[in-house]
């Protein structure tokens, strides 16, 4: 079956530094694909490049490659070639994104309801009252208690978990085909992480959106991913179904990444964690 999103030989640079080097992967309808790797491996830049946000507010430049996206009407377009006006139609609408820090990702001076309504009014052309109804509906969907009361609150009046639910509500408010989640649980504590991951899984089933999740946490990968792309130093080093990656990792880097996951009792008899073995690849 033709993929919903197909990234082909994507290369992104920041000046003379190559942050993403000939990265390719496919994302199919209803699939959850995890992009894993340590900090600086290029996973977030890959995500921002799909939204073409890497060129706005940063010095990033997409040097090469294609990002083919199958639109709801079946037409396949290359996002790299789209004009900024056309990309704005796609952002937050057909492809939406949630970020790592739910506190700093929401504007502190506007109520959370207004911030979600803004996306709905922009892309679905709803009037203010209809948009408010849609916000309520979305807040209920992401299981925010007392949504009427919550929608007039400001980000600082909410807990981390609630703020991330608001971000998810905002991202899903226009029924996206692709949801990109950049480290959505990293800033949350463990119990809230589990709630948010459970919520994302349920929502994927309800809405049918494909999910591209960026993470460095192998626990999150095991929890939600169908397929995994492992990145190291701007390159894809391994790509395959999650089960295979966990059971038979073929690349030394993936093996080292899996071995680094702390296990109960692994610190017994040691005063500090075992060092992470560096794996070098020839470029």
């Amino acid at each position, binding site marked *: 079956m033709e993929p919903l999103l197909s990234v082909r030989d994507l290369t992104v640079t920041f000046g003379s530094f190559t942050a993403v080097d000939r990265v390719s992967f496919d994302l199919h309808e209803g699939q959850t694909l995890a992009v894993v790797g340590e900090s600086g491996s290029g996973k977030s830049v890959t995500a921002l490049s799909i939204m073409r946000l890497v060129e706005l*507010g940063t010095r990033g430049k997409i040097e090469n490659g294609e990002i083919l996206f199958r639109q709801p009407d079946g037409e396949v377009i290359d996002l790299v070639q789209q004009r900024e006006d056309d990309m704005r139609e796609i952002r937050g609408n057909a492809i939406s994104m949630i*970020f790592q820090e739910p506190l700093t990702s929401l504007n502190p001076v506007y109520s959370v309801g207004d911030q979600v309504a803004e*996306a709905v009014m*922009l892309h679905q052309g709803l009037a203010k009252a209809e948009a408010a109804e849609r916000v309520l509906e979305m807040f209920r969907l992401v299981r925010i208690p007392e949504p009427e009361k919550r929608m007039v609150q400001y980000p600082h*009046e909410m807990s981390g978990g609630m703020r991330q639910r608001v971000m998810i509500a905002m991202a899903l408010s226009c029924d996206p085909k692709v949801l990109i989640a950049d480290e959505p649980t990293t800033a949350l504590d463990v119990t809230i992480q589990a709630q948010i991951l459970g919520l994302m899984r349920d929502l994927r089933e309800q809405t049918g959106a494909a999910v591209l999740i960026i993470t460095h946490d192998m626990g999150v990968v095991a929890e939600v991913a169908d397929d995994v792309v492992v990145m190291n130093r701007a390159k894809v080093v391994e790509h395959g179904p999650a089960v295979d990656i966990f059971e038979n990792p073929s690349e030394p880097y993936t093996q080292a990444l899996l071995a680094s996951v702390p296990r109960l009792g692994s610190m017994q008899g040691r005063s500090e964690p075992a060092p992470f073995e560096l794996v070098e690849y020839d470029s």
Partner: protein
Amino acid sequence: MKQIAARIAWSVGLILAVIVMCFSLVHLAPGDAALVIAGDSGAGDPELIEEIREDLGLDDSYLIQLSRYVGDVASGDLGTSYRFNESVTSLIGDRIWPTILLVTTALLFAIVIGVLVGVFTARRPESPVSHGVTVFSLVGYSMPVFWTGYLLIITFASNVRWFPVAGMRDVRLEGNRLEEWLDIAHHLVLPALTLGLIYLAQYSRLSRASMLEVLQSDYVRTARAKGLAERKVVYKHALRNAVIPVITIAGLQFGALLSGALLVETVFNWPGLGRLAADSVFQRDAPVLLGVLICSAALVVVINILTDVVYRMIDPRIRVGGST
């Protein structure tokens, strides 16, 4: 609301402290008020001097004089000018509006233009215009107010004659109210520009730095990820956050702006409080000097309360009820 009420109550106490301090300073200053009132011709007449002292209660103790003055001020009476033999309240009443007009025009000009320039240069930080604005800000900030004033007078009032040299009104004008207002506005341009330029330089730098920081923030990235147009991202999501430091600094600087107004009023012969204060110092007119000091303090306090209100309107994190 409760916090604002507390702030007002606190401000009344502050103004009372200012009254006590100013009165004490004037009281401590050397010189005899009776001699000033009697003037050159009356100074040699001991009976006249004694009579004046008795009339004004200058022989009473410091505490009695102070409590009498505080009581008078509370009832709206700031005393009588030694020089003009006129009520200080009415003298200040005539002069306070020109000063408020000058200072608010200069402040609004500095904030509005400064923020717009700051936003423009923050969006293009490496452009020649941005570097030009940085240099202009440095020059604007370094120029003394009186020098800027004379420079503007020479250029725009003397050479090209676009604006009047000094004053607030054209005495020859016989027109309707609109024409009078336009005439005042015409006279206002150069003094307000002189006073505003130095603050324009500061606010454009401040809002540029603030905007550069805000444009890198996560919530601006979220706004872009929503598909908003760049104009809306900048003017709706970024600007409201970026003006917060500008509003804070503008409120704090209002006192300095009033002292700047004194120089500008002198250079442009603008009939405001600053000139009244300067004249009262040279003429040893203590009641007028005290009145001006108290009014200036009250103005600063009122502006600070207004800044607080605006600040709360812009930034909900300052409002009561936040959990963090």
